[in-house]
C-alpha cells in the first residue's frame, strides 16, 4: 500500500475509505516510543486500561506482550503510570535503522488509499 502519487488518485470530497480509524496510521505522529522491560513488567494491565489508543497488546494468557506502533502516538501515559518502572520513553531517532514495516515514511499508509 503506498501513497497515491497524483492528485487525480485521491478520492473526492475528503473521503476516507472504510469509515474506520483502524486503517489510519496515527503512529506516524510519534516522536517518543514506549519500550517495555518485560523482566520488570508484572502485567498489572494499568497501561492496557489507560492507553487512549488501545495500543498495548496482550497475549493469549492476558499478559502484556507488545505495543502496537501503528497506532501508538507516544503520549507516555503508560510510562508515567507504570508502578514498577518497566516502560521507558525513547526518542524515535534511536530507531531510524529499523525496517519501515509499518510505513514509517509519512504518507505511506492512510485511509485515503483504498
Amino acid at each position: 500500500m503506498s501513497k497515491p502519487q497524483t492528485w487525480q488518485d485521491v478520492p473526492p470530497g475528503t473521503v476516507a475509505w472504510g469509515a474506520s480509524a483502524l486503517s489510519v496510521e496515527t503512529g506516524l505522529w510519534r516522536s517518543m516510543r514506549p519500550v517495555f522491560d518485560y523482566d520488570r513488567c508484572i502485567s498489572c494491565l494499568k497501561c492496557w486500561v489507560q492507553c487512549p489508543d488501545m495500543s498495548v497488546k496482550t497475549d493469549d494468557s492476558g499478559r502484556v506482550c507488545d505495543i502496537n506502533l501503528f497506532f501508538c502516538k507516544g503520549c507516555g501515559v503508560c510510562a508515567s503510570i507504570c508502578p514498577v518502572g518497566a516502560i521507558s520513553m525513547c526518542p524515535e531517532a534511536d530507531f531510524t535503522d529499523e525496517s519501515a514495516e509499518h510505513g514509517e515514511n509519512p504518507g505511506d499508509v492512510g485511509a485515503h488509499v483504498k
Partner: protein
Amino acid sequence: MLNNKSKIMTSGNLAFAEAMRQINPDVVAAYPITPSTEIPVKFAEFVADGKVDSEYIAVESEHSAITACVGASVAGGRVMTASSANGVALMHEIFPIASAFRAPIVFGLVNRSLGAPVNIHCDHSDSMPERDSGWIQIYCEDAQEVYDSVLLAVRLAEHKDVLTPVFVCQDGFITSHCYEPVEFLSDEAVRNFVGERTPQLPLLDVDNPVSYGSFTMSEYYFEIKRNQMEGMNNVLRVYGEISKELAVQTGREYQPIDSYRAEDADYLIIIMSSAAGVVKDVVDEMRENGIKAGCLRIRFFRPFPRDELVKIAAGKRGIAVLDRSASIGGTAPLASEVKSALYDLTDHVPVQEYIFGLGGRDFYPADAEKVFRTMIHSDYSSNVRYIGLLDKDDKNGQN
C-alpha cells in the same frame, strides 16, 4: 403537460421559493434573515401545507443551518437553504467544508451589506468574502433569472464532474422584494429537468462505508484540494450543456457573461446583478447618440469566466468596472478579476475602477452616463472612484 407554463407577478424571493417547491428537496435547514427571510418562510409554508416532502429543520443559528445542510448533503440528500449578510458571515466557517466535501448544496444568497453599520439594503459585501470558499457564485439580474438559475444550479451542483455547492445570488430588496412578471415551468417539467440526485459516496451507504472530513496531514491535504479545484474547472463546460437543455423549454439561455451591445462597443461598463438594467438603458440612449457604448454583466463570478471576458474586452478604448463591494486596502473584487484577466492582452485597455451602491445607495442612469462620458474624455485615475458619494475635495462627487 410539459409546456404548461404560467406567468405571474412575483418577487425574486418568492420565485426562489416556488422553484424550491417544484424541486422538492430532501432537506432544507434554514435560519431566516432579512432580506432572504421570505424564502425559508414561504418554503416552511409549503412544508406545513404538505406541498413538498422535504424535511425542514428549524435551527438556532445560521452556523447550525449550513452545518445541518452539509450533513444532509453528504448523507446523499438534495439540500437547499438561503441567507443574507451577517447570516452568511456566520456560516463562513462551514462554506469551505461544504465545498471540500463536494456537497452540492443550492443556496439562495440574497445580497445585503455586511454590518457594521447595520443596514438591510443591497451590496455585495456578504457574498464577496466567500469567493475563495470553493462555491460556485451566480449573480442574477432579475427574478426570472433567479428562478431559471435555481433549476440550473441543482443540475450543475450535482453533476458528477462538478459536485460543488452553488450560491444563487440576487440583489436584496431590488430583486428579492420587487414584483415583476416571472414565467414558471410546470411542476412536471421541473421534475423532469432536475431528476433525482444520484449521490456519489453517500454517508448513508452502509455497504460501502466512508468517512468525510478526517484529519489529513501534509501528505494528502494538497492533493485533496487540487482534486477539489478540478470540480470548479469543469463548471463552465457542464453549465454550457445544462443551460442549452433548459433553454429548449424556457427559450431563455444565460451565458456566464451577459454581453449587451458589447461586441462592437468602444466603451464598456462591467457590472453585476440588478444594476446592469440601468446601464443597459443608458447604453441604448448613448447608441442613439452615436456613441458605441456596451455593457458586460458578469453572471458567474466563481468560476470567473476569464477567457470569455478577454475575448470581448480586447481592443476596447476604455472599460469601467463598477464594484458593489470594496476590498478595503486593496482592489475591489470585480475590478481585481477584470484587471487580472486583461493583463495578458498585448494592447493595453485602460480600466477605471468604481465603487457604487454600498448599503443600497441608489445608482441612477445619470451615474452610468457620467461613467461613459468620463471614459470618452480619456479621464482615468489609478485610484478607485466612488459613485454617489460626496467628497469635500471634489465638487462633482467623484474624486
